[in-house]
Protein backbone atom coordinates (compact mmCIF):
# COMPACT_ATOMS: atom_id res chain seq x y z
CA UNK A 1 0.00 0.00 0.00
CA UNK A 2 2.78 2.36 0.98
CA UNK A 3 4.58 1.45 -2.21
CA UNK A 4 1.54 2.36 -4.27
CA UNK A 5 1.35 5.74 -2.60
CA UNK A 6 5.03 6.29 -3.26
CA UNK A 7 4.67 5.48 -6.94
CA UNK A 8 1.56 7.60 -7.11
CA UNK A 9 3.30 10.55 -5.49
CA UNK A 10 6.28 10.18 -7.78
CA UNK A 11 4.09 9.93 -10.86
CA UNK A 12 2.18 13.07 -9.91
CA UNK A 13 5.33 15.02 -9.17
CA UNK A 14 6.95 13.71 -12.31
CA UNK A 15 4.09 14.81 -14.54
CA UNK A 16 4.10 18.28 -13.01
CA UNK A 17 7.85 18.59 -13.43
CA UNK A 18 7.77 17.16 -16.89
CA UNK A 19 4.96 19.36 -18.21
CA UNK A 20 7.01 22.46 -19.03
CA UNK A 21 9.78 20.38 -20.55
CA UNK A 22 7.36 18.35 -22.64
CA UNK A 23 5.65 21.58 -23.66
CA UNK A 24 8.97 22.89 -24.89
CA UNK A 25 9.98 19.76 -26.75
CA UNK A 26 6.61 19.26 -28.39
CA UNK A 27 6.33 22.96 -29.14
CA UNK A 28 9.67 22.90 -30.90
CA UNK A 29 8.20 20.45 -33.36
CA UNK A 30 5.07 22.45 -34.14
CA UNK A 31 4.50 25.34 -36.50
CA UNK A 32 4.75 28.66 -34.64
CA UNK A 33 1.10 29.61 -34.63
CA UNK A 34 0.03 26.35 -33.07
CA UNK A 35 2.34 26.66 -30.10
CA UNK A 36 0.34 29.43 -28.49
CA UNK A 37 -3.02 28.17 -29.72
CA UNK A 38 -2.54 24.74 -28.21
CA UNK A 39 -1.02 25.90 -24.97
CA UNK A 40 -4.28 25.91 -23.07
CA UNK A 41 -5.19 22.31 -23.47
CA UNK A 42 -3.74 18.86 -23.65
CA UNK A 43 -3.01 19.59 -27.29
CA UNK A 44 0.12 21.27 -25.99
CA UNK A 45 1.60 17.86 -25.48
CA UNK A 46 0.48 16.32 -28.73
CA UNK A 47 2.94 16.84 -31.57
CA UNK A 48 0.38 17.23 -34.30
CA UNK A 49 1.94 18.16 -37.59
CA UNK A 50 5.38 17.50 -36.18
CA UNK A 51 8.31 18.61 -38.24
CA UNK A 52 11.86 19.71 -37.81
CA UNK A 53 11.21 22.99 -39.59
CA UNK A 54 11.79 25.07 -36.48
CA UNK A 55 15.18 23.50 -35.99
CA UNK A 56 16.05 24.32 -39.56
CA UNK A 57 14.85 27.89 -39.00
CA UNK A 58 17.04 28.29 -35.94
CA UNK A 59 20.10 27.04 -37.75
CA UNK A 60 19.33 29.47 -40.56
CA UNK A 61 18.66 32.51 -38.38
CA UNK A 62 21.49 32.16 -35.94
CA UNK A 63 25.03 30.77 -36.33
CA UNK A 64 24.16 28.13 -33.78
CA UNK A 65 27.32 26.12 -34.23
CA UNK A 66 29.42 29.17 -33.46
CA UNK A 67 27.49 30.00 -30.32
CA UNK A 68 27.62 26.38 -29.23
CA UNK A 69 31.35 26.22 -29.80
CA UNK A 70 31.83 29.44 -27.85
CA UNK A 71 29.77 28.20 -24.93
CA UNK A 72 31.56 24.86 -24.91
CA UNK A 73 34.97 26.47 -25.12
CA UNK A 74 34.33 29.05 -22.43
CA UNK A 75 32.68 26.65 -20.00
CA UNK A 76 35.33 23.97 -20.53
CA UNK A 77 38.18 26.37 -19.98
CA UNK A 78 36.61 27.70 -16.80
CA UNK A 79 36.12 24.16 -15.55
CA UNK A 80 39.61 23.02 -16.50
CA UNK A 81 41.30 26.06 -15.05
CA UNK A 82 39.11 25.94 -11.98
CA UNK A 83 39.79 22.31 -11.23
CA UNK A 84 43.51 22.95 -11.30
CA UNK A 85 43.62 26.16 -9.37
CA UNK A 86 40.91 25.56 -6.78
CA UNK A 87 41.94 22.02 -5.93
CA UNK A 88 45.48 23.16 -5.27
CA UNK A 89 44.21 25.88 -2.99
CA UNK A 90 41.82 23.53 -1.22
CA UNK A 91 44.66 21.12 -0.65
CA UNK A 92 46.94 23.85 0.63
CA UNK A 93 44.34 24.97 3.12
CA UNK A 94 43.46 21.53 4.38
CA UNK A 95 46.71 19.62 4.33
CA UNK A 96 49.65 21.94 4.57
CA UNK A 97 50.58 24.05 7.49
CA UNK A 98 51.91 27.42 6.44
CA UNK A 99 52.13 30.91 7.80
CA UNK A 100 49.05 33.01 7.13
CA UNK A 101 46.93 30.02 6.23
CA UNK A 102 44.13 30.54 8.71
CA UNK A 103 43.50 34.26 8.22
CA UNK A 104 43.61 33.82 4.43
CA UNK A 105 41.20 30.91 4.60
CA UNK A 106 38.71 33.07 6.48
CA UNK A 107 38.38 35.11 3.28
CA UNK A 108 36.89 32.19 1.42
CA UNK A 109 33.42 31.94 3.00
CA UNK A 110 33.15 35.74 3.00
CA UNK A 111 33.78 35.82 -0.74
CA UNK A 112 31.26 33.05 -1.31
CA UNK A 113 28.58 35.48 -0.28
CA UNK A 114 29.37 38.12 -2.90
CA UNK A 115 27.10 37.69 -5.93
CA UNK A 116 28.42 38.35 -9.43
CA UNK A 117 25.87 41.09 -9.94
CA UNK A 118 27.29 43.10 -7.07
CA UNK A 119 30.70 43.32 -8.67
CA UNK A 120 29.60 43.32 -12.30
CA UNK A 121 29.94 47.04 -12.91
CA UNK A 122 33.31 47.62 -11.20
CA UNK A 123 34.60 44.44 -12.80
CA UNK A 124 33.37 45.80 -16.11
CA UNK A 125 35.39 48.96 -15.65
CA UNK A 126 38.36 46.85 -14.65
CA UNK A 127 38.33 44.57 -17.66
CA UNK A 128 37.72 47.54 -19.91
CA UNK A 129 40.89 49.00 -18.48
CA UNK A 130 42.72 45.79 -19.32
CA UNK A 131 41.34 46.00 -22.84
CA UNK A 132 39.65 42.63 -22.67
CA UNK A 133 36.29 43.38 -24.28
CA UNK A 134 35.06 41.02 -26.98
CA UNK A 135 37.48 38.24 -26.07
CA UNK A 136 37.27 34.76 -24.71
CA UNK A 137 39.67 35.67 -21.93
CA UNK A 138 37.28 38.14 -20.38
CA UNK A 139 34.59 35.49 -20.16
CA UNK A 140 36.92 32.86 -18.72
CA UNK A 141 39.57 34.30 -16.46
CA UNK A 142 37.41 36.07 -13.84
CA UNK A 143 35.60 32.83 -13.11
CA UNK A 144 38.42 30.35 -12.80
CA UNK A 145 39.11 31.00 -9.13
CA UNK A 146 35.95 30.15 -7.24
CA UNK A 147 35.43 30.33 -3.49
CA UNK A 148 32.73 27.69 -3.48
CA UNK A 149 34.95 25.22 -5.33
CA UNK A 150 37.82 25.88 -2.96
CA UNK A 151 35.56 25.15 -0.03
CA UNK A 152 34.33 21.96 -1.68
CA UNK A 153 37.86 20.66 -2.24
CA UNK A 154 38.88 21.73 1.23
CA UNK A 155 36.11 19.71 2.89
CA UNK A 156 36.83 16.66 0.78
CA UNK A 157 40.58 16.64 1.32
CA UNK A 158 40.03 16.94 5.04
CA UNK A 159 38.33 13.58 4.94
CA UNK A 160 41.04 11.77 2.98
CA UNK A 161 42.95 9.13 4.94
CA UNK A 162 46.44 10.39 5.74
CA UNK A 163 48.15 7.05 5.12
CA UNK A 164 48.29 7.64 1.39
CA UNK A 165 50.23 10.88 1.71
CA UNK A 166 52.45 9.52 4.43
CA UNK A 167 53.39 6.59 2.23
CA UNK A 168 54.28 8.96 -0.57
CA UNK A 169 56.33 11.08 1.79
CA UNK A 170 58.31 8.08 2.92
CA UNK A 171 59.11 7.38 -0.71
CA UNK A 172 60.65 10.85 -0.87
CA UNK A 173 57.94 12.58 -2.91
CA UNK A 174 57.63 16.39 -2.72
CA UNK A 175 54.36 18.19 -2.06
CA UNK A 176 53.45 18.63 -5.71
CA UNK A 177 54.26 15.05 -6.61
CA UNK A 178 52.20 13.82 -3.67
CA UNK A 179 49.31 15.94 -4.74
CA UNK A 180 49.38 14.93 -8.38
CA UNK A 181 50.09 11.26 -8.10
CA UNK A 182 48.47 10.32 -4.82
CA UNK A 183 45.75 12.75 -3.85
CA UNK A 184 44.20 13.54 -7.20
CA UNK A 185 43.69 9.97 -8.42
CA UNK A 186 41.87 9.22 -5.18
CA UNK A 187 39.62 12.25 -5.43
CA UNK A 188 37.64 11.59 -8.56
CA UNK A 189 34.22 12.21 -6.95
CA UNK A 190 35.03 15.73 -5.81
CA UNK A 191 36.64 16.65 -9.11
CA UNK A 192 33.55 15.40 -10.91
CA UNK A 193 31.24 17.30 -8.60
CA UNK A 194 33.17 20.53 -8.95
CA UNK A 195 33.35 20.11 -12.71
CA UNK A 196 29.64 19.52 -13.15
CA UNK A 197 28.53 22.29 -10.81
CA UNK A 198 30.84 24.82 -12.41
CA UNK A 199 29.88 23.75 -15.91
CA UNK A 200 26.17 24.07 -15.15
CA UNK A 201 26.59 27.53 -13.69
CA UNK A 202 28.73 28.82 -16.52
CA UNK A 203 26.72 27.32 -19.38
CA UNK A 204 23.83 29.60 -18.59
CA UNK A 205 25.85 32.78 -17.96
CA UNK A 206 23.99 35.73 -19.43
CA UNK A 207 24.58 39.06 -17.71
CA UNK A 208 28.36 39.09 -17.86
CA UNK A 209 28.80 38.09 -21.53
CA UNK A 210 26.09 40.63 -22.39
CA UNK A 211 28.09 43.37 -20.76
CA UNK A 212 31.50 42.57 -22.11
CA UNK A 213 30.89 41.33 -25.63
CA UNK A 214 29.21 42.70 -28.70
CA UNK A 215 30.82 40.64 -31.42
CA UNK A 216 28.91 37.52 -32.37
CA UNK A 217 32.08 35.56 -32.84
CA UNK A 218 32.77 35.28 -29.10
CA UNK A 219 29.25 35.21 -27.69
CA UNK A 220 27.86 32.20 -25.86
CA UNK A 221 24.50 30.49 -26.35
CA UNK A 222 22.33 32.32 -23.79
CA UNK A 223 22.92 35.58 -25.63
CA UNK A 224 21.58 34.09 -28.83
CA UNK A 225 18.17 33.92 -27.17
CA UNK A 226 18.11 37.69 -27.06
CA UNK A 227 18.60 37.71 -30.82
CA UNK A 228 15.37 35.78 -31.11
CA UNK A 229 13.48 37.98 -28.79
CA UNK A 230 14.30 41.10 -30.74
CA UNK A 231 13.31 40.04 -34.22
CA UNK A 232 9.60 40.38 -34.69
CA UNK A 233 7.46 38.46 -35.35
CA UNK A 234 8.07 36.34 -32.32
CA UNK A 235 8.32 32.73 -33.35
CA UNK A 236 7.71 30.59 -30.33
CA UNK A 237 8.37 27.34 -32.14
CA UNK A 238 11.82 28.57 -33.08
CA UNK A 239 12.54 29.74 -29.55
CA UNK A 240 11.60 26.36 -28.18
CA UNK A 241 13.70 24.57 -30.76
CA UNK A 242 16.59 26.76 -29.74
CA UNK A 243 15.97 25.89 -26.12
CA UNK A 244 16.03 22.18 -26.81
CA UNK A 245 19.24 22.46 -28.78
CA UNK A 246 20.78 24.48 -25.99
CA UNK A 247 19.91 22.12 -23.19
CA UNK A 248 20.39 18.78 -24.89
CA UNK A 249 24.20 18.78 -24.68
CA UNK A 250 24.34 19.43 -20.96
CA UNK A 251 21.54 17.03 -20.20
CA UNK A 252 23.55 14.47 -22.09
CA UNK A 253 26.66 15.31 -20.12
CA UNK A 254 24.73 15.06 -16.89
CA UNK A 255 23.17 11.74 -17.78
CA UNK A 256 26.59 10.29 -18.44
CA UNK A 257 28.20 11.65 -15.31
CA UNK A 258 25.32 11.56 -12.87
CA UNK A 259 26.32 8.42 -11.10
CA UNK A 260 29.66 9.94 -10.22
CA UNK A 261 27.99 13.15 -9.20
CA UNK A 262 25.76 11.61 -6.57
CA UNK A 263 28.61 9.62 -5.16
CA UNK A 264 30.68 12.78 -5.22
CA UNK A 265 28.21 14.64 -3.07
CA UNK A 266 28.03 11.85 -0.53
CA UNK A 267 31.72 11.51 0.13
CA UNK A 268 32.43 15.21 -0.26
CA UNK A 269 30.73 15.64 3.04
CA UNK A 270 28.63 18.57 1.94
CA UNK A 271 26.14 17.00 4.23
CA UNK A 272 28.51 17.40 7.16
Amino acid at each position, binding site marked *: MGRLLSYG*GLALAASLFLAP*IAFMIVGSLKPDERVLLDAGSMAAFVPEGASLQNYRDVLARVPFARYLLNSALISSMIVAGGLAVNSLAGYAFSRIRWRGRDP*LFALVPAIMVIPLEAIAVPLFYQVTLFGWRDTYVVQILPFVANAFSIYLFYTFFLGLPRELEEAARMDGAGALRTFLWVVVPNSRPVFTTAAILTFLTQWGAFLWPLMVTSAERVRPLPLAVSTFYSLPPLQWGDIFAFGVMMVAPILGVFLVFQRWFVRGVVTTGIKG
Partner: protein
Amino acid sequence: MTDSIQRRSGPLFAAPALLGLVVFVAVPFALAVVLAFTNLRLGSPLPTEFVGAEQFRRIFAEPAFVRALLNNTLFALVVVPLQTLLALALALLLHQRLKGRAFFRTLFFAPVVFPLSLVAVVWVLIYAPGPEGMMNGFLRAVTFGAWIPRDFLRDPVLALPAIMLTSIWQGAGFQMVILLAGLQGIPGELYEAAAMDGAGRWGQFQHVTLPQLRNTLSFTVLVTSILAFRLFDQVQIMTRGGPRNATTTVMFEAVQASFGRQQVAKGAAMTVVLFLVVLAITGVQRWVARQGREVG
Protein backbone atom coordinates in the same frame (compact mmCIF):
# COMPACT_ATOMS: atom_id res chain seq x y z
CA MET B 1 60.43 15.71 2.24
CA THR B 2 61.35 18.23 4.85
CA ASP B 3 58.89 20.35 6.69
CA SER B 4 60.19 23.58 5.20
CA ILE B 5 59.56 22.41 1.64
CA GLN B 6 56.07 21.51 2.66
CA ARG B 7 55.66 24.90 4.28
CA ARG B 8 56.76 26.71 1.13
CA SER B 9 54.40 24.76 -1.06
CA GLY B 10 51.40 25.97 0.94
CA PRO B 11 51.42 29.56 -0.25
CA LEU B 12 52.53 28.43 -3.70
CA PHE B 13 49.58 26.11 -4.12
CA ALA B 14 47.07 28.60 -2.81
CA ALA B 15 48.49 31.59 -4.64
CA PRO B 16 46.84 31.27 -8.07
CA ALA B 17 43.34 30.84 -6.66
CA LEU B 18 43.80 33.53 -4.05
CA LEU B 19 45.19 35.90 -6.64
CA GLY B 20 42.17 35.24 -8.83
CA LEU B 21 39.76 35.82 -5.98
CA VAL B 22 41.44 39.03 -4.95
CA VAL B 23 41.74 40.49 -8.44
CA PHE B 24 38.35 39.47 -9.75
CA VAL B 25 36.15 39.50 -6.68
CA ALA B 26 37.62 41.32 -3.70
CA VAL B 27 38.97 44.32 -5.58
CA PRO B 28 35.82 44.95 -7.66
CA PHE B 29 33.74 44.65 -4.55
CA ALA B 30 35.88 47.14 -2.72
CA LEU B 31 35.47 49.37 -5.76
CA ALA B 32 31.70 48.91 -5.63
CA VAL B 33 31.68 49.99 -2.02
CA VAL B 34 33.67 53.09 -2.91
CA LEU B 35 31.43 53.86 -5.90
CA ALA B 36 28.40 53.72 -3.64
CA PHE B 37 29.62 56.88 -2.00
CA THR B 38 30.01 58.81 -5.23
CA ASN B 39 27.67 60.10 -7.90
CA LEU B 40 29.22 58.21 -10.80
CA ARG B 41 26.99 58.12 -13.89
CA LEU B 42 27.60 55.80 -16.80
CA GLY B 43 29.20 57.63 -19.69
CA SER B 44 28.61 61.06 -18.29
CA PRO B 45 31.18 63.69 -19.20
CA LEU B 46 30.57 65.43 -15.88
CA PRO B 47 33.20 64.91 -13.18
CA THR B 48 32.48 62.36 -10.47
CA GLU B 49 32.28 63.56 -6.89
CA PHE B 50 31.99 62.05 -3.46
CA VAL B 51 28.54 62.48 -2.02
CA GLY B 52 28.80 60.61 1.23
CA ALA B 53 25.80 58.53 2.13
CA GLU B 54 23.50 60.35 -0.31
CA GLN B 55 22.94 57.32 -2.54
CA PHE B 56 21.94 55.22 0.45
CA ARG B 57 19.57 57.88 1.65
CA ARG B 58 18.02 58.02 -1.79
CA ILE B 59 17.50 54.33 -2.37
CA PHE B 60 15.76 53.90 0.93
CA ALA B 61 13.49 56.79 0.01
CA GLU B 62 12.51 55.13 -3.24
CA PRO B 63 9.38 53.01 -3.00
CA ALA B 64 10.67 50.69 -5.72
CA PHE B 65 13.81 49.75 -3.83
CA VAL B 66 12.10 49.32 -0.49
CA ARG B 67 9.51 47.14 -2.19
CA ALA B 68 12.34 45.20 -3.80
CA LEU B 69 13.86 44.41 -0.41
CA LEU B 70 10.45 43.36 0.80
CA ASN B 71 9.89 41.17 -2.24
CA ASN B 72 13.26 39.49 -1.86
CA THR B 73 12.52 38.77 1.79
CA LEU B 74 9.05 37.49 1.01
CA PHE B 75 10.44 35.40 -1.78
CA ALA B 76 13.04 33.85 0.50
CA LEU B 77 10.55 33.25 3.29
CA VAL B 78 8.22 31.37 0.96
CA VAL B 79 10.52 29.67 -1.52
CA VAL B 80 13.12 28.36 0.91
CA PRO B 81 10.77 26.30 3.08
CA LEU B 82 8.54 25.22 0.20
CA GLN B 83 11.37 24.19 -2.05
CA THR B 84 13.17 22.44 0.79
CA LEU B 85 10.05 20.54 1.79
CA LEU B 86 9.42 19.51 -1.78
CA ALA B 87 13.02 18.46 -2.24
CA LEU B 88 12.92 16.51 1.01
CA ALA B 89 9.71 14.78 0.05
CA LEU B 90 11.10 13.81 -3.33
CA ALA B 91 14.35 12.67 -1.79
CA LEU B 92 12.49 10.51 0.72
CA LEU B 93 10.39 9.04 -2.07
CA LEU B 94 13.45 8.26 -4.14
CA HIS B 95 15.38 6.88 -1.19
CA GLN B 96 13.24 3.78 -1.23
CA ARG B 97 14.14 0.95 -3.52
CA LEU B 98 11.72 1.69 -6.31
CA LYS B 99 11.98 0.73 -9.92
CA GLY B 100 12.98 3.49 -12.27
CA ARG B 101 14.76 5.45 -9.56
CA ALA B 102 17.46 6.72 -11.91
CA PHE B 103 14.83 7.90 -14.40
CA PHE B 104 12.93 9.91 -11.81
CA ARG B 105 16.12 11.30 -10.36
CA THR B 106 17.22 12.58 -13.76
CA LEU B 107 13.75 13.96 -14.45
CA PHE B 108 13.57 15.99 -11.27
CA PHE B 109 17.08 17.26 -11.79
CA ALA B 110 16.47 18.18 -15.44
CA PRO B 111 15.05 21.67 -14.77
CA VAL B 112 18.27 22.59 -12.95
CA VAL B 113 20.14 22.08 -16.17
CA PHE B 114 18.07 24.75 -17.94
CA PRO B 115 19.57 28.23 -17.93
CA LEU B 116 17.29 30.57 -16.02
CA SER B 117 16.73 32.76 -19.05
CA LEU B 118 15.32 29.82 -20.98
CA VAL B 119 13.12 28.74 -18.08
CA ALA B 120 11.70 32.25 -17.96
CA VAL B 121 10.87 32.23 -21.65
CA VAL B 122 9.01 28.91 -21.46
CA TRP B 123 7.07 29.96 -18.38
CA VAL B 124 5.99 33.22 -20.01
CA LEU B 125 3.95 31.09 -22.37
CA ILE B 126 2.75 28.84 -19.60
CA TYR B 127 1.40 31.89 -17.82
CA ALA B 128 -0.13 33.38 -20.97
CA PRO B 129 -3.36 35.21 -20.19
CA GLY B 130 -6.68 33.97 -21.38
CA PRO B 131 -7.77 30.40 -21.96
CA GLU B 132 -4.80 29.72 -24.24
CA GLY B 133 -2.40 29.83 -21.34
CA MET B 134 -1.31 26.46 -20.03
CA MET B 135 -1.62 27.43 -16.39
CA ASN B 136 -5.08 28.81 -16.96
CA GLY B 137 -6.04 25.66 -18.81
CA PHE B 138 -4.62 23.47 -16.09
CA LEU B 139 -6.40 25.33 -13.30
CA ARG B 140 -9.62 25.27 -15.25
CA ALA B 141 -9.38 21.53 -15.69
CA VAL B 142 -8.52 20.97 -12.05
CA THR B 143 -11.39 23.13 -10.79
CA PHE B 144 -13.85 21.66 -13.29
CA GLY B 145 -14.31 24.92 -15.12
CA ALA B 146 -14.63 27.18 -12.09
CA TRP B 147 -11.37 29.00 -12.74
CA ILE B 148 -11.53 32.37 -14.53
CA PRO B 149 -8.48 32.87 -16.75
CA ARG B 150 -6.07 35.41 -15.32
CA ASP B 151 -3.10 37.34 -16.56
CA PHE B 152 -0.73 35.99 -13.96
CA LEU B 153 2.29 38.05 -14.77
CA ARG B 154 0.32 41.25 -14.68
CA ASP B 155 -1.79 40.54 -11.65
CA PRO B 156 -0.45 42.45 -8.61
CA VAL B 157 -1.31 39.56 -6.32
CA LEU B 158 -0.43 36.57 -8.49
CA ALA B 159 2.72 37.83 -10.18
CA LEU B 160 5.20 37.15 -7.39
CA PRO B 161 3.75 33.70 -6.60
CA ALA B 162 4.00 32.92 -10.30
CA ILE B 163 7.70 33.67 -10.23
CA MET B 164 8.07 31.72 -7.01
CA LEU B 165 6.59 28.67 -8.69
CA THR B 166 8.97 29.00 -11.61
CA SER B 167 11.94 29.18 -9.24
CA ILE B 168 10.82 26.23 -7.19
CA TRP B 169 10.37 24.18 -10.32
CA GLN B 170 13.84 25.08 -11.38
CA GLY B 171 15.61 24.68 -8.05
CA ALA B 172 14.00 21.76 -6.27
CA GLY B 173 15.91 19.14 -8.20
CA PHE B 174 19.26 20.45 -7.10
CA GLN B 175 18.33 20.43 -3.43
CA MET B 176 16.78 17.01 -3.86
CA VAL B 177 19.98 15.48 -5.14
CA ILE B 178 21.97 16.83 -2.22
CA LEU B 179 19.39 15.71 0.33
CA LEU B 180 19.27 12.31 -1.30
CA ALA B 181 22.99 11.98 -0.88
CA GLY B 182 22.58 12.97 2.73
CA LEU B 183 19.92 10.34 3.26
CA GLN B 184 22.12 7.71 1.69
CA GLY B 185 24.80 8.53 4.22
CA ILE B 186 22.70 7.64 7.24
CA PRO B 187 23.75 4.27 8.66
CA GLY B 188 21.03 1.66 8.63
CA GLU B 189 21.85 0.56 12.18
CA LEU B 190 20.39 3.75 13.56
CA TYR B 191 17.03 2.92 12.07
CA GLU B 192 17.19 -0.63 13.38
CA ALA B 193 18.01 0.62 16.84
CA ALA B 194 15.10 3.03 16.75
CA ALA B 195 12.75 0.33 15.54
CA MET B 196 13.83 -1.88 18.38
CA ASP B 197 13.00 0.95 20.76
CA GLY B 198 9.48 0.83 19.42
CA ALA B 199 9.57 3.82 17.10
CA GLY B 200 7.20 3.73 14.11
CA ARG B 201 7.83 5.29 10.69
CA TRP B 202 7.10 8.78 11.93
CA GLY B 203 9.18 8.31 15.06
CA GLN B 204 12.12 7.07 13.05
CA PHE B 205 11.81 10.07 10.80
CA GLN B 206 11.75 12.43 13.75
CA HIS B 207 14.52 10.92 15.77
CA VAL B 208 16.87 9.45 13.20
CA THR B 209 16.38 11.01 9.79
CA LEU B 210 15.99 14.64 10.73
CA PRO B 211 18.89 14.94 13.16
CA GLN B 212 21.25 13.09 10.82
CA LEU B 213 20.14 15.30 7.97
CA ARG B 214 20.59 18.49 9.92
CA ASN B 215 23.85 19.62 8.34
CA THR B 216 22.78 18.82 4.82
CA LEU B 217 19.53 20.65 5.35
CA SER B 218 21.20 23.71 6.75
CA PHE B 219 23.64 23.79 3.85
CA THR B 220 20.92 23.65 1.20
CA VAL B 221 18.78 26.14 3.09
CA LEU B 222 21.73 28.51 3.21
CA VAL B 223 22.46 28.24 -0.52
CA THR B 224 18.79 28.62 -1.47
CA SER B 225 18.43 31.69 0.72
CA ILE B 226 21.45 33.35 -0.83
CA LEU B 227 20.12 32.63 -4.30
CA ALA B 228 16.70 33.99 -3.35
CA PHE B 229 18.24 37.38 -2.74
CA ARG B 230 20.03 37.31 -6.06
CA LEU B 231 16.79 36.85 -8.02
CA PHE B 232 17.13 38.62 -11.36
CA ASP B 233 16.74 36.63 -14.59
CA GLN B 234 13.09 35.68 -14.22
CA VAL B 235 12.09 39.19 -13.26
CA GLN B 236 14.00 40.69 -16.15
CA ILE B 237 12.38 38.41 -18.71
CA MET B 238 8.94 37.70 -17.31
CA THR B 239 7.68 40.78 -15.52
CA ARG B 240 10.21 43.61 -15.67
CA GLY B 241 9.55 44.26 -12.00
CA GLY B 242 5.87 44.91 -12.52
CA PRO B 243 3.03 45.14 -12.00
CA ARG B 244 3.52 48.21 -9.87
CA ASN B 245 6.73 46.88 -8.32
CA ALA B 246 5.03 43.68 -7.21
CA THR B 247 7.87 41.55 -8.47
CA THR B 248 10.83 43.86 -8.47
CA THR B 249 13.97 42.69 -6.72
CA VAL B 250 17.11 44.37 -5.48
CA MET B 251 19.22 43.07 -8.35
CA PHE B 252 16.61 44.14 -10.90
CA GLU B 253 16.49 47.64 -9.47
CA ALA B 254 20.28 47.77 -9.38
CA VAL B 255 20.62 46.76 -13.02
CA GLN B 256 17.84 49.16 -14.03
CA ALA B 257 19.54 51.99 -12.23
CA SER B 258 23.01 51.24 -13.52
CA PHE B 259 22.21 50.43 -17.12
CA GLY B 260 18.71 51.67 -17.76
CA ARG B 261 19.21 55.09 -16.20
CA GLN B 262 23.01 55.27 -16.21
CA GLN B 263 23.07 55.75 -12.43
CA VAL B 264 26.00 53.50 -11.61
CA ALA B 265 26.64 54.83 -8.12
CA LYS B 266 23.06 54.23 -7.13
CA GLY B 267 23.22 50.67 -8.47
CA ALA B 268 26.41 50.10 -6.51
CA ALA B 269 24.75 51.31 -3.32
CA MET B 270 21.94 48.85 -3.85
CA THR B 271 24.32 45.94 -4.31
CA VAL B 272 26.24 46.92 -1.18
CA VAL B 273 23.00 46.78 0.76
CA LEU B 274 22.30 43.41 -0.80
CA PHE B 275 25.69 42.11 0.28
CA LEU B 276 25.17 43.27 3.84
CA VAL B 277 21.75 41.64 4.01
CA VAL B 278 23.04 38.35 2.63
CA LEU B 279 26.04 38.45 4.96
CA ALA B 280 23.72 38.99 7.89
CA ILE B 281 21.51 36.09 6.91
CA THR B 282 24.48 33.82 6.33
CA GLY B 283 25.82 34.79 9.71
CA VAL B 284 22.53 34.09 11.42
CA GLN B 285 22.11 30.73 9.75
CA ARG B 286 25.61 29.61 10.58
CA TRP B 287 25.10 30.72 14.16
CA VAL B 288 21.86 28.74 14.38
CA ALA B 289 23.55 25.70 12.88
CA ARG B 290 26.37 25.96 15.37
CA GLN B 291 23.94 26.24 18.27
CA GLY B 292 22.20 23.14 17.08
CA ARG B 293 25.45 21.29 16.78
CA GLU B 294 26.42 22.18 20.31
CA VAL B 295 23.13 21.04 21.75
CA GLY B 296 22.59 17.97 19.59
